[in-house]
């Protein structure tokens, strides 16, 4: 029953999105000038597109993200453990306390992360 509703909704969502594009194709006028097909460049002629530089100065933040992503999964797994075994809440609380205070300590002490290139 509910699966039917979900499937109907998914199909309807995709159909509405497609309908937008189809209506756009029907209603819009077709003659597109050459200058409109060019890449946007603030009124200039577009000049060479090369691979733009990746902002390397923010690389430390990516490392922090990776570390914290793993930690957040650990937190989630420990919460599952609490759902299954309610007596384990004490141990999980100690784990969370260590995590919270160490993250506060690190964030206060680690300064100037943006690298000057």
């Amino acid at each position: 029953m509910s699966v039917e509703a979900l499937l109907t909704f998914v199909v309807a969502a995709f159909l509405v999105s497609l309908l937008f594009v189809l209506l756009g194709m029907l209603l819009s006028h077709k003659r597109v000038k050459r200058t409109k097909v060019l890449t946007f460049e603030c009124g200039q002629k577009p000049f060479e597109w090369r691979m733009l530089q990746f902002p390397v100065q923010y690389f430390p933040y990516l490392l922090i993200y990776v570390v914290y992503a793993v930690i957040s999964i650990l937190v989630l797994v420990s919460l599952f453990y609490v759902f299954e075994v309610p007596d384990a809440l004490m141990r999980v609380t100690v784990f969370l306390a260590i995590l919270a205070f160490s993250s506060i300590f690190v964030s206060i002490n680690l300064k100037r992360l943006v690298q000057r290139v």
Partner: protein
Amino acid sequence: MSSLILQEYARAAANFLNELPHPLKDFILFLHSDTFIKAIIFPGLLFILTFVMFTIWFERKLLARVMVRLGPLHVGKYAGLLQLVADAVKLLSKELIVPEKAIKPLYVSMPILCGALSMLIFAFLPLGPGWVIYPSDISLLLVFVILAVTPITILVAGWASRSKYSFIGMVRLAFQVFSYEVPFFLAIASITLAARSFNLEKIVEAQAELPFIIPALLGFIVFLITAIAEVERVPFDLPTAEQELVSGWQTEYTGAYFALFYLAAYIKLDAMAILTALLFLGGWHGPSIPGIPESILGPFWLILKSLIVIFLVLLLRGVFPRITLDKLLDIGWRVLIPLALLNILIVAVLIQIGLI
């Protein structure tokens, strides 16, 4: 007397239905089945589109009032309510331009995918007791999964446009995802600990006496900030910064494609507001009004609460300037993640004491 007439009408309608050919009869039966009503009318499609239209109108009117303007006024009977329809027709009649350097299949398919995926969030959000398209035991995780997937469509769209502005906007969006994803997840985790469930309906039922905003106030603050970053609203609208990057990752998109991205952004905003109301503000619990049945009162309170959240988020656009990328990244791990972890700790201690 009137009941007799009604019975007569019902019999006539049943006779009429029985005389119809088979596929037509099935179709009419489907139209008033639970499946159709849930998927298309109330928690489904029509409700989403109406809510989004109202949100956009409300934003324009509110921002106009903040800047002492009048806002949309002329289209529609009252205060430019139909301005959005006029805008949609205008957008649809613009030519669909695919830039010659763009990667065409990705460029064309991503707006459709983004619009459809952001609508899918509503499939798992209950708007009242029983008012949900797909009840699931892990509905909160499903919502999180879809919210985590939608930025990828935007990243691919920015990549496929092959324009400098799109590329810069896309990279900014990627960094923004790095900064808000983990605190958002941790703020949700504290609520699951307080309610001991991933089912959104059970989470709301656990808030019958006390909404979770009181024990998890820090989590509410973290959640609201990260939710605003998730929907790219103003203090965090770096990827589509109009004054710096033309229009960020959607620079090259025109007409119907742009309309789809615009729609998707507001659908995500509404979904976020409803999620905030469900997780922290007590969902559909509220004082009962005599004469109104429970099944209508629940959605009424929920939508009222989510409108308050939407009001708050929209007001930020009129008040705050945009912050820079390094500040956003710094806030992400220096402030939000420790606060979110501290919030989970507070919730765990409160459960230990026995207050929740």
